[in-house]
């Protein structure tokens, strides 16, 4: 049992790492998508590009590692999830292919039209993948995956909770990316970009916070068990998540970047661990499948623990080296800030003199649109729920 719990913790830890590292790379794609036209979006696009270029592949490996641990340690649950949620998983996989390829191709093409096309593919698929992964997690958490699955189910991941989780994932990725990018801009003394991404991070923080609260309220209706546990034994983690989110938003507003990255990542991590703690030891809620009876013998679980220890020992220092070199701009070739000679930035003629961050209306508009969309979504979902429950 202890070993099974340890493996569960390992899986959750690597999911967390994928979320706070890989998730931010997807969020970068979100801001790339929303950066506006060639001219206006040139500076932020270039900043996003330089910041995720050397690291996204290494960050992406966490996903592969998550999948491998999942199917090795909990094969029965893995097969059930893969069967039931085949459609969103296919879509997420497709998004991963297009994101990576679009991103890699964009920097090697020269024609403006091709750069635009590749960039659009990259940015749009950065939006799709976290959304569909969110619906998968939401479907699992809300007990939509049967233990003895035989076929895919559309209803499993198009319920209120899965869809909300999908939106939550997307906005959380945007939040993380905004915070990281703002922090990086502050570090390299690029005040324009610091403000630009801080505004966006704030907007994403608002949307993420609103969605989280709405999701909690929905859970109260739809899944009282999970709600009870989230506000019961997982309450400390939920509070940590809220405090971290608020603190990060406050620091963003104050324009003080110190510690902000850690706070944002911690907030997201607390949400993931809150889910894990609330659900423990059940693997697929609503079924009898727990961490210790999902199909792997003791020896396999022990082997996974040993493997995880080796990964920590070998991969930890390697990642530290990568991030340290990246942080010192050894891996970009150029400085991150706009001091770069007026070379043609991504998909753009000469960069526009006035960056979008200098237009104060833009960020508040983003916030307003985000909030309105969230409220509208919540209303639609509520109406749907009422129809279902016949009220």
């Amino acid at each position, binding site marked *: 049992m202890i070993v099974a719990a340890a493996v569960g913790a390992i899986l959750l830890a690597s999911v967390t790492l994928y979320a706070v590292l890989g998730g931010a790379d997807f969020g970068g794609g979100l801001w790339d998508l929303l950066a506006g036209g060639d001219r206006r979006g040139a500076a932020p696009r*270039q900043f996003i590009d*330089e910041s995720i*270029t*050397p690291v996204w*592949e*290494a960050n*992406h*490996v966490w996903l*592969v*590692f998550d*999948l*491998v*641990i999942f*199917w*090795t340690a909990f*094969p029965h649950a*893995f*097969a*059930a999830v*893969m069967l039931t949620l*085949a459609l969103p998983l296919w879509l997420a*996989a*497709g998004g991963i*292919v*297009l*994101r*990576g*390829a679009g*991103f*890699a*191709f*964009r*920097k*090697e*093409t*020269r024609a403006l039209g091709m750069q635009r096309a590749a960039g659009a593919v990259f940015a749009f698929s950065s939006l799709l993948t976290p959304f569909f992964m969110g619906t998968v997690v939401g479907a699992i958490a809300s007990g939509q995956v049967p233990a003895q699955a035989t*076929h*895919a189910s559309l209803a499993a991941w198009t319920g209120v909770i899965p869809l909300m989780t999908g939106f939550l994932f997307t906005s959380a990725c945007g939040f993380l990316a905004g915070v990281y990018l703002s922090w990086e801009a502050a570090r390299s003394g690029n005040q324009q970009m610091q403000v630009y991404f801080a505004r966006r991070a704030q907007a994403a923080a608002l949307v993420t916070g609103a969605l989280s609260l709405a999701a909690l309220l929905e859970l109260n209706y739809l899944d009282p068990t999970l709600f009870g546990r989230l506000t019961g034994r997982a309450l400390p983690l939920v509070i940590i998540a809220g405090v971290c989110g608020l603190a990060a938003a406050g620091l963003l507003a104050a324009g003080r970047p110190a510690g902000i990255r850690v706070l944002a990542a911690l907030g997201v991590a607390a949400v993931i661990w809150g889910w894990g703690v609330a659900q423990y030891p059940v693997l697929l809620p609503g079924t009898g499948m727990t961490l210790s009876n999902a*199909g792997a*013998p003791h*020896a*396999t679980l022990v*082997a*996974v623990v040993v*493997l995880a220890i*080796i*990964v920590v020992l*070998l*991969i930890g220092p*390697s990642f530290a*080296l*990568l991030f340290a*070199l990246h942080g010192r*701009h*050894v*891996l*970009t*070739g150029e400085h991150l800030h706009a001091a770069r000679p007026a*070379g043609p930035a*991504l998909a753009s003629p000469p960069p526009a003199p006035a960056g979008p961050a200098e237009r104060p209306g833009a960020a508040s508009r983003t916030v307003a649109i985000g909030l309105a969309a969230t409220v509208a979504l919540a209303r639609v979902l509520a109406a749907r729920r009422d129809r279902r429950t016949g009220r």
Partner: protein
Amino acid sequence: MSAAADLLVAAARTGADVVPARAQMASTLGFHIILACLGIALPTIVLLAEYIGLRRHNEVALLLARRWSQAMGVLVAVGAVTGTVLSFEMGLLWPGLMRRYGAVLGLPFGVEGLFFFLEAIFTAIYLYGWRRLPGWAHWWTGVPIAVSGVFGAMSVIAVNAWMNQPGGFTERGGRIVAVDPWQVFFNHAAIYEMPHMILAAYMVSGFTVAGIYAAGILRGRRDRYHHTGFALGFVPAAALTPVQIFVGDTAARAIAHDQPVKFASMEYVPRTSTHVPEWLGGFYWGGHVYGGLRIPDLDSVLVGFSPGTRVTGWDSVPPAGRPPVVWLIHLCFDVMVGLGFLLLLAGLWALLEYWRHRRLPPQRLFWLLGAVSGLAAIVAMECGWVVTEVGRQPWVVYRLQTTAAAATTNGGVVTTLTLIIVVYAALGAATLLILRALSRRWRRGEAGESEVPYGPPGELGPPGEEAQRAAGQARP
């Protein structure tokens, strides 16, 4: 017992259920495996070029290493995402396999994950560290890529080998109750599959690099730059070819013993007997071999070094337990072996010419051979995968689980198959086009290299200077 039940299931399910899933796995794996080969072995070739460049102050070799790094950036990205698709497909297409054996075959995959991490991290440092890291420090950051490429390949091949020769676990009542990770990893087939595939990766990468520069030389670009590029790929690949032929021959003998039905399909052995002839080519249909060259007794000799050696035929198992398209397996095997010998010939030719005249052969035929060597190596490698995968049918885990029992019970695979073929066709075309555009920019000697806004910087020093020098060499 459960295997027999599996066979019944397989018979009950129409081919329509499983064929699309197999086709999808085959096409995505067939696509990814080329990139995987380049991922395993190309770093070594780049490191070799950089080593020579640093050691002998060879600017041409250094320039090649830098340019190959830029191409590697594209290839690694496409390889990473297509590899991820395979991870998804393990569950999405084969939930039956993962449910029953995930706890066993997941272990080598986990080890592979470890090396995939190292590879990705150090690839990033190496590719993007060209400008800022000092020469030898930069070279050393590439070494973990080459090493983890080999170990990662060993891990993945351990899984495939395990499917051919499953072992290292105890199954009771449909559940895995005990696992011995060492026996899973170093299963009986791993011993020959691992070196066979790793050598194949080096041959594919080396000959592909050589092929590109041979094509340039054929078009009249007979300069030091192109000859260096050709040699850096050709020499290691050609040197490994005889080793590969030896390993392949050993593997075939082991397969005759371990997986006799697969071997019988590879060599057209319908009935267990002695004095079995060897068929070169030939199309098997309805009990006859049409065309092809029949060499009496040779198959028995190859298997056991004497014409009296008994070779097991596919009549040793009932028809339901035999692979579906025998001719495909046999012809793919012959193509693989034939291309292997063709590549050996190219290497011997170069060796002879170098031994006698200290130069590469001047004949146009040699360079034609060199130009197609990359394609030949890729085709041979793909054929080898067809042999081992189709040859194992109807089993996914040999004699334990049928492919039909492993396949998803979801419909709609035809849709995902269609979509994935479209996406992968676009992906493949875009990759080739971008690599070609890169090489054109290089050839124009565009200072464009240092202008690459987001790729690894093409040049070390002040932009242009070196590129112009190299371009000068490129166009004498």
